[in-house]
């Protein structure tokens, strides 16, 4: 198979399993984001793919070849580190040419490739600058160019944009995605920023406690989260409880919701409703009534906090569909069955 296969890979440190029986297939040319909270094992998984850590069990297969025991420097991959790890004693050009120099490329070859790469990352003419004289974004681009110098089979990035300010980070996300599509290179990015993952990835892999919780395209992850961990981690959501009443109908807050059913053999299950799917109605016209506790008007969006029993439901609306409510008011909350996702508990 062309692409990367991670077969039942485990990494333990003492008795702690950082990566726990992970199974993942990445077709050639896919952009993958490993997403999860800190300590979920995403960086350890990336370092095993790079060969910087040796798996305790399982195999890593690249284009049909088992590379589990192949040392890093023979794997033909490019990696961007969180600290960028640019060589401080070398100029921009020499940093990028390092891999070519190791391979014994001639001076002319090195220069041609460096110029090509610098142009690709929009840093033409920076070749002779010392690395220390660059801005954060420029250093980022140099690190990317250096990793791509040998046109590697795999492009790995460990939280590459975390050091940049928010605006620059968003711009770099788009740029990185465009660069990846232009080169058609299999790319794996570790991140804890779900916006970053949604922007760039073909395949988002949500990890928690060393296991893969869900691996799916971004929109599917958002619309159809597999469990409450994924639903909560990707964007914000209202996690409610779906319970069976005496007649066996599925209810939320004791109110039957048409079109929803409980998984077989269960009398209760968590259900996720995205805030933008919740509608505020006149009292009595929604699924259930509640009291508005707070309205956050952010200009672009308006968040309404509604207290129902001991649960707070958040509804997000655009100014166009502005619900004209104030704190203290009683309103109806409508939970459309089509937007409610029943989760594995």
């Amino acid at each position: 198979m062309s692409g990367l296969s991670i077969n039942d890979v485990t990494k333990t440190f003492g008795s702690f399993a950082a990566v726990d029986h992970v199974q993942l297939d990445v077709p050639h040319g896919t952009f993958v984001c490993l997403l999860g909270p800190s300590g979920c094992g995403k960086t350890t998984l990336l370092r095993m793919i790079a060969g910087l850590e040796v798996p305790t069990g399982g195999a890593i297969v690249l284009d049909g070849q088992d590379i589990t025991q192949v040392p890093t420097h023979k794997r033909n991959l490019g990696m961007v580190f969180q600290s960028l790890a640019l060589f401080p004693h070398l100029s921009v050009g020499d940093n990028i040419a390092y891999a070519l120099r190791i391979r014994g490329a001639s001076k002319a070859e090195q220069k041609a490739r460096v110029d090509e790469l610098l142009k690709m990352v929009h840093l033409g003419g920076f070749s002779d600058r010392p690395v220390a004289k660059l801005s954060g974004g420029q250093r980022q681009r140099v690190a990317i160019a250096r990793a791509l110098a040998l046109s590697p089979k795999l492009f790995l990035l460990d939280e590459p944009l975390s050091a940049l300010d928010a605006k620059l980070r968003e711009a770099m996300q788009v740029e990185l995605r465009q660069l990846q599509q232009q080169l058609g290179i299999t790319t794996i990015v570790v991140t804890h920023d779900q916006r970053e993952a949604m922007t760039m990835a073909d395949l988002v892999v949500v990890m928690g406690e060393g296991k893969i919780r869900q691996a799916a395209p971004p929109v599917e992850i958002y619309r159809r989260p597999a469990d409450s961990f994924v639903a909560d981690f990707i964007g914000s959501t209202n996690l409610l409880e779906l319970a069976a009443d005496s007649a066996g109908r599925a209810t939320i807050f004791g109110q039957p919701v048409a079109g929803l059913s409980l998984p077989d053999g269960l009398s209760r299950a968590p259900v996720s409703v995205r805030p933008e799917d919740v509608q505020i109605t006149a009292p009595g016209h929604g699924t259930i009534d509640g009291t508005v506790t707070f309205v956050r008007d952010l200009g672009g969006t308006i968040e309404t906090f509604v207290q129902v029993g001991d649960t707070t439901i958040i509804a997000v609306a655009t100014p166009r569909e502005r619900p004209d409510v104030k704190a203290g008011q009683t309103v109806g909350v409508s939970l459309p069955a089509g937007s409610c996702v029943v989760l594995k508990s």
Partner: protein
Amino acid sequence: MRRERPQTFADYTPLFFPGLMLVVFFVVPFSTMIAVSFFKRDPTGFYTRDFVFDNYARFLSSFFGGVLGFSLLLAIGVAICCVVIAFPFTYLLTQRPRRIQTLWLVGLLSVLSLSEVIIGFAWSTLLSRTAGITNLFVWLGLMEAPVALLPSVWAVLTGMVYHALPYTILVLYPALVRLDPTLLEAARTLGASPVRAFLNVVTPALRNTLVATLIMVFVFALGSYLLPQILGRPQHWTLSVLITDQAIYQSNMPFAAAMAVFLVLISLALVGLTLLIGRRENAG
């Protein structure tokens, strides 16, 4: 943080105490030594005040010049050996778990507590014919008969490297611990083998530290005075030994002072030269 320049006379007061100590314990004795080096020796007594260059002229004779050359070469050799051994060792030490690092560092500190005399006699036993390591080699079948490995210049070098190595490691350790480990990993992902990555990433990144350590060990070794006498022949004696000999046993203070001044000047010149070369390479 912005540092303000001292404005008033009162701002300089914290400098008075160290300044005074430096004058009393360094500037005054050193000036006295320089002055004495121009005095004339009085064979019946101590010395008489004068201003002659006899002492320096005598020093430039081929014998003392040879000793100076040998002392400098020996110190340079010790410095290079120490750094070549200590640098990879310290690097590998920093890769180990913290507990093992602590054990090693405590062990090294305990070696530091040994005096030069003990180190000298320990090595003279180890390198001797009757009780030395060659007996072990004979037992292992590597040698026919035990031999004496001293007195020789190699014995002197071994003893001095052993003496200076803990200092070298302790000086290199903080710099290597602070080194960003991802630099080496980055080099490996770019196709460099671990050894190659160490040579062309770690070494240049720490070049200034290495130069500073070389100078420190060089100066340290230059002052060595017991080990050459215990482990070497008279022709392996360093200038420090001769200075002591002239000052204490020959009662020739002016000549001893002249040699000491010369040694200080030569060392300063070498250190200055090393720093100058380092700076030029940095700029280029």
